[in-house]
C-alpha cells in the first residue's frame, strides 16, 4: 500500500491526465521528490528550494501541513495527500 496523492487539475498535464497518483511514504518533501522522478517538472511547480510554495497548500488527509511539521511532516501508507493551489477565476 502506498500514499495516494490528489493532483489538482492545473497540474494534471504533468501527470499525464491522472487525478490521483501513488507515491512512497516518507516526508512531504521526499514525496514531492519521489513524484518528480515519475513526473518531471512537478516539484518545481509546487516547491522551491525544498519548500512548498506559499500559494500552494498540501494536506495530509484533511490537515494542512503548515500547521503540522510543514515539509518534514511524515506521510504514512494509506494517507491521502492533496495538493491544492490557489485559483482565482470567476469570469
Amino acid at each position, binding site marked *: 500500500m502506498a500514499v495516494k496523492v490528489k493532483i489538482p*487539475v492545473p497540474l494534471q498535464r504533468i501527470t499525464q491526465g491522472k487525478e490521483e497518483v501513488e507515491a512512497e511514504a516518507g516526508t512531504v518533501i521526499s514525496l514531492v521528490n519521489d513524484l518528480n522522478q515519475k513526473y518531471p517538472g512537478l516539484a518545481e511547480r509546487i516547491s522551491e528550494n525544498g519548500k512548498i510554495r506559499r500559494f500552494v497548500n498540501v494536506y495530509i488527509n484533511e490537515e*494542512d501541513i503548515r500547521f503540522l511539521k510543514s515539509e518534514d511532516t511524515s506521510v504514512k501508507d494509506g494517507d491521502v495527500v492533496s495538493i491544492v493551489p*490557489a485559483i482565482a477565476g470567476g469570469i
Partner: protein
Amino acid sequence: MEFTEEQLKRYSRHIILSEVGGKGQKKISAAKVLMVGAGGLGCPVGYYLAAAGVGTIAIVDNDEVELSNLQRQIAHSVKTLGMKKADSAKQTFEALNPDVNVVAIKERINSKNILDLIRDYDIIVDGTDNFPTRYLINDACVMLGKPLVTGAILRFEGQVTTILPGDGPCYRCLFEEPPPAGLVPSCQEAGVLGVLPGVIGALQATEVLKLIIGKGKPLKGELLIYDALGVNFRKVKIPKNSECPVCGKEPTIKELSDMPEQYCEI
C-alpha cells in the same frame, strides 16, 4: 413588512420549509448582498438570490458583455452584447423577480472605493477573476467584519469557502500569498468548462441564504473543492493562522492597497 398574496405564492416553497418559514423569508427579503463580479460566478449567484427574494442585490462590475462570455454567464444574452454586465444582469434579475432591488455599480473595485461600496451590505460574494481583487476583498471584509462567501473556478475545478471575520480563518490564512506574476498562463488561456461556475455559484448562493436565515453549518474553516472530471467533492481544513497578516494577533496589513495585476493558475 407583510407579504402580498402574490409574494406568498412566489415564496411558498420556501415558506413551507420549517427552516425558512415566513420568518426566514422576511429575513431574506430584508437582506442586502453585494456581489463583486457579474461573470461566470456572479450570474448564477445573483440569479438564485434574486429568485429567492433577497431584498437588495448590488453588482459591482465594470466590464461589458462579450460573445465569449455567453458560454457560461447565464444572466447575459445576445441582446445585451456590449452592455455593461452590471446593467445586463440587473435587467435579467429584475425580470425574474421585480421584488428585488438590484443596484448596478459600474466601477472597478479598488482599495479606494471598496470600504464605501461594501459598508452598507450584510454579506459579500466574491466572484472575481484575479488574485489582487480577491485579496483586497478579503482584507476589506476582515477590516469591516463582513461575512464573505468566496468561490473560484479554473478549467474543471472549483473552490468555495465562507469567511466569517472574527469567527474563523480568512483567505490569507488559507493562501498566504498569490502566485507570482509570469509563472503561469492567464485565465483566458486556461479555459473553463461552462457549467462549472454554475455548480460553484449555486454553492455560494446556498451559503449566502444559510447565513441570512441563520440555519445549518456555514462552510467556515473548510475549503470545499469540486473536481468535475473525477466527480469529487472534498473538504480540507483551513486552520486560523495566528500569524495571519490581516486577521492574526498582530496584523501587519492595516491599510488596503492595490496589488499589481497577476495571473490565476500555477
